[in-house]
């Protein structure tokens, strides 16, 4: 893990309040797994860093793509950073989705809203290993949809929206039985309610979920980001034991 002033090489709004930020620097070469994140210092006006998942990397160009949604003051301020500026980044952090170690043949990726980005790099890595990838991506409304074309290049894609303005009108879980070929493993990232619903529906197969919590240090030292676990240890730190966990490992509340 490094602290680095990374250079902004691209920065665009790609959907409603949703931005693509491409950063260049050495941190890129330390990224090992899809689902890892970086801890971004928006500016000195914000005391805490913001965790943002790595959505894709390009090792040759030493760039990583982050997709973020404006949720509050920090992400709003982030939108005003211009191409060419440098930004203080700590990373890569955490344990991502396992790719090599899982014996999956057909993976189901379930993303909700701003939980979709880390699944993109995951889908690429799975595809590169010859795994069949099917994705269900849920958004609030048509205006919020992003990355669909990118996922289509990697496998089948089903889109849902809460208001039915595009794709299926309803929840991601509605579509599980519409996937004709059986899948053997699931990978999911999104709001906690969604993670819970997905893991309950798919409790019969192995699954990996990526979680969110407010962070202090982002490196495992402060115990801000814990989630209760089923074993004797009793907890996991999202920033370093996660953010990705086996579905059976942690308690979703």
């Amino acid at each position, binding site marked *: *893990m490094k*602290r680095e002033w990374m250079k902004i090489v691209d920065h665009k709004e790609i959907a409603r309040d949703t931005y693509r930020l491409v950063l260049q620097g050495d941190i890129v070469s330390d990224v090992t797994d899809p689902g890892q994140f970086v801890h971004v*210092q928006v500016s000195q006006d*914000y*005391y*805490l*860093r913001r965790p943002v998942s790595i959505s894709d990397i390009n090792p040759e160009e030493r760039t990583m793509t982050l997709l973020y949604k404006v949720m509050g003051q*920090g992400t709003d301020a982030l939108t005003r950073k211009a191409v060419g500026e440098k930004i203080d980044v*700590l990373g890569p952090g955490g344990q991502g989705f396992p790719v090599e170690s899982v014996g999956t043949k057909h993976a189901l990726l379930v993303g909700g809203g701003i939980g979709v980005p880390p699944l993109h790099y995951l889908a690429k890595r799975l595809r590169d290993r010859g795994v069949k990838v099917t994705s269900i991506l849920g958004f609030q409304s048509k205006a919020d949809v992003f990355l669909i074309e990118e996922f289509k290049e990697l496998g089948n894609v089903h889109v849902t929206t809460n208001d039915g303005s595009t794709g299926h009108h309803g929840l991601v879980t509605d579509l599980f039985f519409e996937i004709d070929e059986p899948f053997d493993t699931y990978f999911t990232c999104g709001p906690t309610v969604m993670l819970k619903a997905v893991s309950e529906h798919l409790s019969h197969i192995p699954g990996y979920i990526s979680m969110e*919590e*407010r*962070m*202090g*240090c*982002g*490196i*495992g*030292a*402060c*115990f*801000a*980001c*814990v*989630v*209760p676990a089923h074993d004797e240890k*009793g*907890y996991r730190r999202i920033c*370093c034991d996660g953010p990705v966990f086996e579905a059976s490992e942690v308690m979703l509340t």
Partner: protein
Amino acid sequence: MKVTLPGLDLKNPIMPASGCFGFGKEFAQFYDLSELGAVIMKAATQEQRFGNGTPRVAEASSGMLNAIGLQNPGVDNIIEREIPFLQTKDIPIIANVAGSTIEEYVKVAIKISRHVHALELNISCPNVKEGGVQFGTDPELAARVTRQVVEASAVPVYVKLSPNVTDIVAIAKAVEGAGASGLSMINTLTGMRINLQTRKPIIANQIGGLSGAAIKPVAIRMIHQVYTAVNIPIIGMGGVETADDVIEFMLAGASAVAIGSANFKNPLICKEIIDQLPHTLERYGFSTITEVIGGAHHETVTAGLLRP
């Protein structure tokens, strides 16, 4: 840059504050911990504690709130699994001791003091329901727990004071009288932030402890007041982010300085400040670090806005 305090030979006056540095391992990937003056570990309680619900942190202007709730693996696990790593580094180790009852404090102190250079007696954690802070807000209780821990401990005891009191000097004198070798101040100010969307406190525990630059003037004021009232050294903390801040704390009366939440902004902060300190001392006309300690009390330079 050397400072010598009871039980602690510091090669420089900079150390990470308790709870903001875990047991050091995570920061060892950023720099060699041997460069530190010392290290203060996360609080130790007798049994493993799981702490409060989440969210446990919230942002504030020039600071943050936390209510971790003393999550830690328990004193035995700390001795077995955490201290050995720190012992490989060439630095004094300070154990932060917490508890719900005087008995718990004493038990933890007995065990852990055999493995470290000093104790920091945490009678000021605002984030646990029982124990902790009531010891820090009542001079008599503070003296009682201090006396028993000092007796039980194999090493000098620094008492960590809560700033959430009407009269910090009374508490400081009480624990000095009870045998404390030094003071550590300040812990966090209790505060709250409310989420306008959910209309609820952001932190699950509702109340959290405010740390960071926001509390620096309160820390400086308290250290300045206590310095003249006691004869034991003070480890100062609360919003230290720069080498200038270190000088300000030491001028107020601190003999060494701990850095807490700033480690989250920049994991290299302790090392960077240590590197800058010699230059900063020179800039303000000091030739040794010890000269700075308490300078605001005995300097005779006339204050004013005079300029050449």
